[in-house]
Protein backbone atom coordinates (compact mmCIF):
# COMPACT_ATOMS: atom_id res chain seq x y z
CA UNK A 1 0.00 0.00 0.00
CA UNK A 2 2.83 2.39 0.89
CA UNK A 3 4.41 1.56 -2.44
CA UNK A 4 1.19 2.47 -4.23
CA UNK A 5 1.03 5.85 -2.52
CA UNK A 6 4.71 6.47 -3.26
CA UNK A 7 4.13 5.71 -6.95
CA UNK A 8 1.10 8.02 -6.99
CA UNK A 9 2.93 10.91 -5.34
CA UNK A 10 6.00 10.30 -7.52
CA UNK A 11 3.70 10.82 -10.51
CA UNK A 12 2.33 14.08 -9.10
CA UNK A 13 5.86 15.40 -8.55
CA UNK A 14 7.77 13.97 -11.50
CA UNK A 15 5.22 13.89 -14.32
CA UNK A 16 5.46 17.64 -15.07
CA UNK A 17 9.27 17.42 -15.03
CA UNK A 18 9.46 14.42 -17.34
CA UNK A 19 6.60 15.80 -19.44
CA UNK A 20 8.45 19.12 -19.90
CA UNK A 21 11.67 17.37 -20.90
CA UNK A 22 9.74 15.14 -23.29
CA UNK A 23 8.10 18.21 -24.84
CA UNK A 24 11.57 19.76 -25.22
CA UNK A 25 12.94 16.64 -26.90
CA UNK A 26 9.81 16.55 -29.06
CA UNK A 27 10.42 20.12 -30.26
CA UNK A 28 14.10 19.39 -30.92
CA UNK A 29 13.35 16.24 -32.92
CA UNK A 30 10.61 18.08 -34.83
CA UNK A 31 13.10 20.83 -35.70
CA UNK A 32 15.69 18.29 -36.86
CA UNK A 33 13.08 16.61 -39.06
CA UNK A 34 12.47 20.01 -40.67
CA UNK A 35 16.20 20.67 -41.14
CA UNK A 36 16.42 23.20 -38.29
CA UNK A 37 18.53 23.23 -35.12
CA UNK A 38 15.57 23.71 -32.80
CA UNK A 39 15.21 25.23 -29.32
CA UNK A 40 17.05 24.09 -26.17
CA UNK A 41 15.66 20.98 -24.45
CA UNK A 42 14.52 23.14 -21.50
CA UNK A 43 12.54 25.49 -23.76
CA UNK A 44 9.10 24.30 -22.49
CA UNK A 45 10.25 25.15 -18.93
CA UNK A 46 11.32 28.65 -20.02
CA UNK A 47 7.96 29.09 -21.75
CA UNK A 48 6.13 27.99 -18.62
CA UNK A 49 8.07 30.33 -16.31
CA UNK A 50 7.51 33.21 -18.71
CA UNK A 51 3.77 32.57 -18.88
CA UNK A 52 3.65 32.68 -15.08
CA UNK A 53 5.15 36.18 -15.17
CA UNK A 54 2.72 37.46 -17.76
CA UNK A 55 -0.51 39.28 -17.14
CA UNK A 56 -3.49 36.91 -17.16
CA UNK A 57 -6.30 38.42 -19.16
CA UNK A 58 -9.66 36.74 -19.38
CA UNK A 59 -13.09 38.05 -20.18
CA UNK A 60 -14.55 36.01 -17.33
CA UNK A 61 -13.14 34.62 -14.10
CA UNK A 62 -15.02 31.32 -14.52
CA UNK A 63 -12.51 30.39 -17.21
CA UNK A 64 -9.73 30.25 -14.62
CA UNK A 65 -11.84 28.07 -12.34
CA UNK A 66 -12.49 25.55 -15.12
CA UNK A 67 -8.79 25.44 -16.00
CA UNK A 68 -8.06 24.59 -12.36
CA UNK A 69 -10.64 21.77 -12.59
CA UNK A 70 -8.87 20.59 -15.75
CA UNK A 71 -5.59 20.31 -13.80
CA UNK A 72 -7.04 18.78 -10.63
CA UNK A 73 -8.95 16.00 -12.39
CA UNK A 74 -6.00 15.22 -14.64
CA UNK A 75 -3.80 14.89 -11.55
CA UNK A 76 -6.48 12.71 -9.93
CA UNK A 77 -6.68 10.45 -13.00
CA UNK A 78 -2.89 10.09 -13.18
CA UNK A 79 -2.61 9.51 -9.43
CA UNK A 80 -5.21 6.76 -9.59
CA UNK A 81 -3.37 5.16 -12.50
CA UNK A 82 0.08 5.15 -10.91
CA UNK A 83 -1.43 4.27 -7.54
CA UNK A 84 -2.53 1.07 -9.24
CA UNK A 85 -6.23 1.80 -8.97
CA UNK A 86 -9.23 1.13 -11.15
CA UNK A 87 -8.64 1.77 -14.85
CA UNK A 88 -12.28 2.80 -15.36
CA UNK A 89 -12.00 5.54 -12.74
CA UNK A 90 -8.81 6.71 -14.44
CA UNK A 91 -10.60 6.99 -17.79
CA UNK A 92 -13.66 8.75 -16.35
CA UNK A 93 -11.58 11.26 -14.36
CA UNK A 94 -9.52 11.83 -17.50
CA UNK A 95 -12.68 12.53 -19.54
CA UNK A 96 -13.95 14.89 -16.83
CA UNK A 97 -10.65 16.75 -16.94
CA UNK A 98 -11.03 17.30 -20.70
CA UNK A 99 -14.62 18.43 -20.20
CA UNK A 100 -13.44 21.10 -17.76
CA UNK A 101 -11.13 22.52 -20.42
CA UNK A 102 -14.03 22.56 -22.90
CA UNK A 103 -16.21 24.38 -20.35
CA UNK A 104 -13.37 26.86 -19.82
CA UNK A 105 -13.22 27.52 -23.55
CA UNK A 106 -17.00 27.97 -23.68
CA UNK A 107 -16.89 30.45 -20.77
CA UNK A 108 -15.40 33.14 -23.01
CA UNK A 109 -17.47 34.82 -25.69
CA UNK A 110 -15.07 34.15 -28.52
CA UNK A 111 -15.99 32.38 -31.75
CA UNK A 112 -12.48 30.89 -32.04
CA UNK A 113 -12.62 29.51 -28.54
CA UNK A 114 -16.11 28.10 -29.17
CA UNK A 115 -15.11 26.35 -32.40
CA UNK A 116 -12.11 24.93 -30.56
CA UNK A 117 -14.35 23.69 -27.74
CA UNK A 118 -16.75 22.05 -30.19
CA UNK A 119 -13.90 20.36 -32.01
CA UNK A 120 -12.46 19.15 -28.70
CA UNK A 121 -15.84 17.56 -27.90
CA UNK A 122 -15.84 15.83 -31.29
CA UNK A 123 -12.29 14.63 -30.70
CA UNK A 124 -13.30 13.27 -27.31
CA UNK A 125 -16.20 11.44 -28.97
CA UNK A 126 -13.70 10.00 -31.43
CA UNK A 127 -11.22 8.90 -28.77
CA UNK A 128 -13.40 7.82 -25.88
CA UNK A 129 -14.69 4.46 -27.32
CA UNK A 130 -11.13 3.20 -27.74
CA UNK A 131 -10.17 4.23 -24.21
CA UNK A 132 -13.13 2.25 -22.87
CA UNK A 133 -12.30 -0.73 -25.11
CA UNK A 134 -8.77 -0.63 -23.70
CA UNK A 135 -10.09 -0.93 -20.15
CA UNK A 136 -12.40 -3.78 -21.20
CA UNK A 137 -9.54 -5.52 -23.01
CA UNK A 138 -7.34 -5.37 -19.92
CA UNK A 139 -10.23 -6.77 -17.89
CA UNK A 140 -10.80 -9.71 -20.21
CA UNK A 141 -7.09 -10.49 -20.45
CA UNK A 142 -6.36 -10.19 -16.71
CA UNK A 143 -9.73 -10.49 -14.97
CA UNK A 144 -9.30 -7.15 -13.28
CA UNK A 145 -9.68 -3.44 -13.92
CA UNK A 146 -7.02 -2.66 -11.32
CA UNK A 147 -3.75 -1.37 -12.79
CA UNK A 148 -1.87 -2.99 -9.91
CA UNK A 149 -3.11 -6.47 -10.83
CA UNK A 150 -2.75 -5.91 -14.59
CA UNK A 151 0.90 -4.91 -14.18
CA UNK A 152 1.56 -7.87 -11.84
CA UNK A 153 0.38 -10.36 -14.47
CA UNK A 154 3.27 -12.50 -15.83
CA UNK A 155 1.88 -12.50 -19.40
CA UNK A 156 2.19 -9.14 -21.21
CA UNK A 157 -1.19 -7.75 -22.24
CA UNK A 158 0.23 -6.93 -25.68
CA UNK A 159 0.06 -10.65 -26.48
CA UNK A 160 -3.71 -10.68 -26.08
CA UNK A 161 -4.48 -7.13 -27.18
CA UNK A 162 -2.43 -6.20 -30.26
CA UNK A 163 -5.50 -4.73 -31.99
CA UNK A 164 -6.43 -2.60 -29.02
CA UNK A 165 -2.83 -1.47 -28.72
CA UNK A 166 -2.83 -0.31 -32.35
CA UNK A 167 -6.19 1.44 -31.90
CA UNK A 168 -4.93 3.20 -28.76
CA UNK A 169 -1.80 4.32 -30.61
CA UNK A 170 -4.14 5.75 -33.24
CA UNK A 171 -6.04 7.92 -30.76
CA UNK A 172 -2.86 8.94 -28.93
CA UNK A 173 -2.43 11.36 -31.84
CA UNK A 174 -5.75 12.97 -30.90
CA UNK A 175 -4.85 13.24 -27.23
CA UNK A 176 -1.36 14.63 -27.91
CA UNK A 177 -2.91 17.28 -30.21
CA UNK A 178 -0.74 16.26 -33.13
CA UNK A 179 -1.43 16.28 -36.87
CA UNK A 180 -3.58 14.97 -38.52
CA UNK A 181 -5.81 15.39 -35.45
CA UNK A 182 -4.78 18.81 -34.12
CA UNK A 183 -8.27 20.13 -34.79
CA UNK A 184 -9.12 21.80 -31.50
CA UNK A 185 -5.78 23.45 -30.89
CA UNK A 186 -2.21 22.91 -31.98
CA UNK A 187 1.33 23.45 -30.76
CA UNK A 188 2.18 24.88 -34.15
CA UNK A 189 1.04 28.25 -35.44
CA UNK A 190 -0.95 27.06 -38.41
CA UNK A 191 -4.42 27.34 -37.01
CA UNK A 192 -7.18 28.82 -39.11
CA UNK A 193 -9.08 29.32 -35.84
CA UNK A 194 -6.25 31.26 -34.13
CA UNK A 195 -5.44 28.88 -31.24
CA UNK A 196 -8.86 27.26 -30.97
CA UNK A 197 -9.43 25.86 -27.52
CA UNK A 198 -6.69 27.91 -25.83
CA UNK A 199 -7.29 31.21 -27.68
CA UNK A 200 -8.83 32.97 -24.69
CA UNK A 201 -6.32 31.81 -22.08
CA UNK A 202 -3.17 33.72 -21.29
CA UNK A 203 -0.55 33.99 -18.59
CA UNK A 204 -1.04 31.67 -15.62
CA UNK A 205 -4.13 29.93 -17.08
CA UNK A 206 -2.21 28.99 -20.21
CA UNK A 207 0.69 27.81 -18.02
CA UNK A 208 -1.71 25.53 -16.11
CA UNK A 209 -3.07 24.12 -19.39
CA UNK A 210 0.52 23.35 -20.47
CA UNK A 211 1.33 21.58 -17.19
CA UNK A 212 -1.90 19.59 -17.43
CA UNK A 213 -0.92 18.53 -20.92
CA UNK A 214 2.39 17.18 -19.54
CA UNK A 215 0.52 15.22 -16.85
CA UNK A 216 -1.78 13.90 -19.59
CA UNK A 217 1.08 12.82 -21.85
CA UNK A 218 2.86 10.93 -19.08
CA UNK A 219 -0.32 9.13 -17.99
CA UNK A 220 -1.16 8.11 -21.57
CA UNK A 221 2.37 6.80 -22.09
CA UNK A 222 1.88 4.93 -18.79
CA UNK A 223 -1.05 3.07 -20.37
CA UNK A 224 1.23 2.04 -23.23
CA UNK A 225 3.80 0.85 -20.68
CA UNK A 226 1.10 -1.35 -19.15
CA UNK A 227 0.91 -3.40 -22.35
CA UNK A 228 4.42 -4.77 -21.72
CA UNK A 229 4.58 -4.29 -17.94
CA UNK A 230 6.30 -7.67 -17.17
CA UNK A 231 9.35 -6.53 -19.19
CA UNK A 232 10.19 -2.97 -18.01
CA UNK A 233 13.07 -2.35 -20.44
CA UNK A 234 11.06 -3.52 -23.45
CA UNK A 235 8.06 -1.50 -22.24
CA UNK A 236 10.08 1.72 -22.05
CA UNK A 237 11.45 1.02 -25.53
CA UNK A 238 7.89 0.45 -26.78
CA UNK A 239 6.75 3.77 -25.31
CA UNK A 240 9.72 5.55 -26.92
CA UNK A 241 8.98 4.00 -30.33
CA UNK A 242 5.29 4.96 -30.09
CA UNK A 243 6.17 8.56 -29.21
CA UNK A 244 8.75 8.81 -32.01
CA UNK A 245 6.18 7.55 -34.51
CA UNK A 246 3.78 10.25 -33.22
CA UNK A 247 6.38 12.94 -33.89
CA UNK A 248 7.03 11.53 -37.36
CA UNK A 249 3.30 11.49 -38.12
CA UNK A 250 2.94 15.05 -36.82
CA UNK A 251 5.61 16.26 -39.23
CA UNK A 252 4.47 14.37 -42.28
CA UNK A 253 0.73 14.92 -42.29
CA UNK A 254 -1.70 17.77 -42.75
CA UNK A 255 -4.69 18.43 -40.51
CA UNK A 256 -7.83 16.48 -41.43
CA UNK A 257 -11.47 17.51 -41.17
CA UNK A 258 -13.39 16.45 -38.07
CA UNK A 259 -15.60 14.15 -40.15
CA UNK A 260 -12.52 12.19 -41.15
CA UNK A 261 -11.27 12.12 -37.57
CA UNK A 262 -14.58 10.67 -36.39
CA UNK A 263 -14.90 8.13 -39.19
CA UNK A 264 -11.32 6.91 -39.04
CA UNK A 265 -11.18 6.56 -35.27
CA UNK A 266 -14.54 4.82 -34.97
CA UNK A 267 -13.60 2.48 -37.83
CA UNK A 268 -10.32 1.73 -36.08
CA UNK A 269 -12.14 1.22 -32.80
CA UNK A 270 -14.62 -1.23 -34.30
CA UNK A 271 -12.21 -3.06 -36.59
CA UNK A 272 -9.09 -3.35 -34.46
CA UNK A 273 -10.54 -2.82 -31.00
CA UNK A 274 -13.88 -4.61 -30.97
CA UNK A 275 -12.73 -7.60 -33.07
CA UNK A 276 -9.68 -8.00 -30.83
CA UNK A 277 -11.98 -7.88 -27.82
CA UNK A 278 -14.39 -10.51 -29.21
CA UNK A 279 -11.58 -12.89 -30.23
CA UNK A 280 -9.87 -12.66 -26.83
CA UNK A 281 -13.22 -13.04 -25.07
CA UNK A 282 -13.95 -16.38 -26.72
CA UNK A 283 -10.33 -17.55 -26.71
CA UNK A 284 -9.94 -17.07 -23.00
CA UNK A 285 -13.55 -18.03 -22.31
CA UNK A 286 -13.84 -15.46 -19.55
CA UNK A 287 -17.30 -15.14 -18.09
CA UNK A 288 -18.30 -11.57 -17.27
Amino acid sequence: MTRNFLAGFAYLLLAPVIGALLAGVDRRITARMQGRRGPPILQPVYDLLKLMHKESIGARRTGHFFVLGHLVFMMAAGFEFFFGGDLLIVIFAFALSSIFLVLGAYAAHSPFSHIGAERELLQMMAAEPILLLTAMGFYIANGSFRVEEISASPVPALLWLPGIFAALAFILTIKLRKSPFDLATSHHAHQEIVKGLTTEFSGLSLAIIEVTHWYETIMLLGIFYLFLAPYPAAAVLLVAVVYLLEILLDNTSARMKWQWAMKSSWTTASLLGAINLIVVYYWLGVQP
Partner: protein
Amino acid sequence: MSFLKRSPWIVHYDGASCNGCDIEVLACLTPRYDVERFGVVNTGNPKHADILLITGYINEQSQPVVKAIYEQMPEPRVVVAVGICATSGGIFRECYNTKGGVDSTIPVDVYVPGCAARPESIIDGVVKAIAVLEEKHLAMKKARAAS
Protein backbone atom coordinates in the same frame (compact mmCIF):
# COMPACT_ATOMS: atom_id res chain seq x y z
CA MET B 1 15.90 36.21 -13.33
CA SER B 2 13.35 36.85 -16.00
CA PHE B 3 12.44 34.18 -18.51
CA LEU B 4 10.92 36.66 -20.93
CA LYS B 5 14.12 36.82 -22.93
CA ARG B 6 14.26 33.07 -23.27
CA SER B 7 10.80 32.67 -24.75
CA PRO B 8 9.58 35.65 -26.77
CA TRP B 9 6.38 34.68 -28.55
CA ILE B 10 5.51 36.70 -31.58
CA VAL B 11 2.32 37.72 -33.33
CA HIS B 12 2.79 39.37 -36.69
CA TYR B 13 0.45 41.54 -38.71
CA ASP B 14 0.74 43.10 -42.13
CA GLY B 15 -0.92 46.54 -42.11
CA ALA B 16 -0.85 47.32 -45.80
CA SER B 17 2.15 47.01 -48.06
CA CYS B 18 3.75 44.99 -50.82
CA ASN B 19 3.99 41.96 -48.45
CA GLY B 20 7.78 41.82 -48.88
CA CYS B 21 8.60 42.38 -45.20
CA ASP B 22 5.79 40.02 -44.25
CA ILE B 23 7.46 37.24 -46.20
CA GLU B 24 10.84 38.10 -44.66
CA VAL B 25 9.31 37.74 -41.18
CA LEU B 26 8.19 34.24 -42.08
CA ALA B 27 11.61 33.54 -43.61
CA CYS B 28 13.05 33.96 -40.09
CA LEU B 29 11.25 30.76 -39.09
CA THR B 30 12.68 28.70 -41.95
CA PRO B 31 15.68 26.37 -41.52
CA ARG B 32 18.12 29.01 -42.78
CA TYR B 33 17.46 31.46 -39.92
CA ASP B 34 15.48 29.23 -37.50
CA VAL B 35 14.55 31.74 -34.78
CA GLU B 36 13.01 28.93 -32.74
CA ARG B 37 16.61 28.32 -31.60
CA PHE B 38 16.08 31.32 -29.30
CA GLY B 39 12.65 30.17 -28.18
CA VAL B 40 10.81 32.46 -30.60
CA VAL B 41 7.42 31.05 -31.51
CA ASN B 42 5.05 32.52 -34.08
CA THR B 43 1.76 32.24 -32.18
CA GLY B 44 -0.87 33.89 -34.35
CA ASN B 45 -2.75 34.75 -31.15
CA PRO B 46 -2.27 38.21 -29.58
CA LYS B 47 -3.30 36.85 -26.16
CA HIS B 48 -0.30 34.51 -26.16
CA ALA B 49 2.18 36.96 -27.65
CA ASP B 50 4.92 39.11 -26.11
CA ILE B 51 6.09 40.90 -29.24
CA LEU B 52 3.94 42.41 -31.98
CA LEU B 53 5.71 42.59 -35.33
CA ILE B 54 3.97 44.93 -37.75
CA THR B 55 4.95 45.26 -41.38
CA GLY B 56 3.44 47.80 -43.75
CA TYR B 57 1.84 51.20 -43.26
CA ILE B 58 -1.41 51.92 -41.48
CA ASN B 59 -4.58 52.92 -43.32
CA GLU B 60 -8.21 53.51 -42.34
CA GLN B 61 -9.04 49.82 -42.59
CA SER B 62 -6.05 48.38 -40.78
CA GLN B 63 -6.04 50.95 -37.97
CA PRO B 64 -8.83 49.38 -35.85
CA VAL B 65 -7.34 45.92 -36.40
CA VAL B 66 -3.88 47.00 -35.21
CA LYS B 67 -5.43 48.69 -32.19
CA ALA B 68 -7.45 45.57 -31.36
CA ILE B 69 -4.43 43.28 -31.61
CA TYR B 70 -2.35 45.61 -29.42
CA GLU B 71 -5.06 45.91 -26.78
CA GLN B 72 -5.49 42.14 -26.57
CA MET B 73 -1.83 41.50 -25.77
CA PRO B 74 -1.07 40.85 -22.07
CA GLU B 75 1.55 43.02 -20.32
CA PRO B 76 4.50 43.22 -20.68
CA ARG B 77 4.33 43.70 -24.46
CA VAL B 78 6.54 45.27 -27.11
CA VAL B 79 5.81 46.56 -30.60
CA VAL B 80 8.33 46.27 -33.43
CA ALA B 81 7.76 48.15 -36.68
CA VAL B 82 9.39 46.11 -39.45
CA GLY B 83 10.36 47.73 -42.73
CA ILE B 84 10.36 51.31 -43.91
CA CYS B 85 6.58 51.39 -44.54
CA ALA B 86 5.93 50.46 -40.90
CA THR B 87 8.40 53.03 -39.59
CA SER B 88 7.22 56.03 -41.61
CA GLY B 89 4.79 55.05 -44.34
CA GLY B 90 7.67 54.61 -46.79
CA ILE B 91 6.83 54.76 -50.46
CA PHE B 92 3.11 54.99 -49.61
CA ARG B 93 3.57 58.02 -47.35
CA GLU B 94 1.92 60.46 -49.77
CA CYS B 95 -0.97 58.17 -50.69
CA TYR B 96 -4.49 59.45 -50.01
CA ASN B 97 -5.37 56.51 -47.74
CA THR B 98 -2.17 56.42 -45.66
CA LYS B 99 -2.30 57.25 -41.98
CA GLY B 100 1.47 56.89 -41.66
CA GLY B 101 3.75 54.46 -39.87
CA VAL B 102 2.69 52.17 -37.04
CA ASP B 103 3.41 54.93 -34.47
CA SER B 104 0.44 56.86 -35.88
CA THR B 105 -1.77 54.30 -34.16
CA ILE B 106 0.05 52.54 -31.31
CA PRO B 107 3.31 53.21 -29.40
CA VAL B 108 6.29 51.58 -31.14
CA ASP B 109 9.35 50.39 -29.17
CA VAL B 110 11.73 49.24 -31.91
CA TYR B 111 12.07 50.37 -35.53
CA VAL B 112 13.61 48.01 -38.08
CA PRO B 113 14.51 49.78 -41.33
CA GLY B 114 14.85 48.18 -44.75
CA CYS B 115 12.92 47.62 -47.94
CA ALA B 116 12.36 44.80 -47.56
CA ALA B 117 13.86 44.35 -44.09
CA ARG B 118 16.41 41.53 -44.17
CA PRO B 119 15.80 38.55 -41.87
CA GLU B 120 19.08 39.40 -40.09
CA SER B 121 17.83 42.88 -39.23
CA ILE B 122 14.42 41.54 -38.19
CA ILE B 123 16.15 39.12 -35.78
CA ASP B 124 18.29 42.04 -34.55
CA GLY B 125 15.08 44.02 -33.99
CA VAL B 126 13.55 41.15 -32.03
CA VAL B 127 16.68 40.95 -29.84
CA LYS B 128 16.38 44.69 -29.11
CA ALA B 129 12.68 44.16 -28.41
CA ILE B 130 13.55 41.49 -25.85
CA ALA B 131 15.70 44.05 -23.99
CA VAL B 132 12.75 46.48 -23.94
CA LEU B 133 10.51 43.64 -22.78
CA GLU B 134 12.85 43.07 -19.82
CA GLU B 135 12.74 46.77 -18.93
CA LYS B 136 8.95 46.80 -19.04
CA HIS B 137 8.79 43.67 -16.93
CA LEU B 138 11.00 45.27 -14.26
CA ALA B 139 8.91 48.45 -14.35
CA MET B 140 5.79 46.32 -13.92
CA LYS B 141 7.33 44.56 -10.92
CA LYS B 142 8.28 47.89 -9.32
CA ALA B 143 4.80 49.29 -9.88
CA ARG B 144 3.29 46.17 -8.33
CA ALA B 145 5.63 46.37 -5.32
CA ALA B 146 4.79 50.07 -4.85
CA SER B 147 1.05 49.48 -4.92
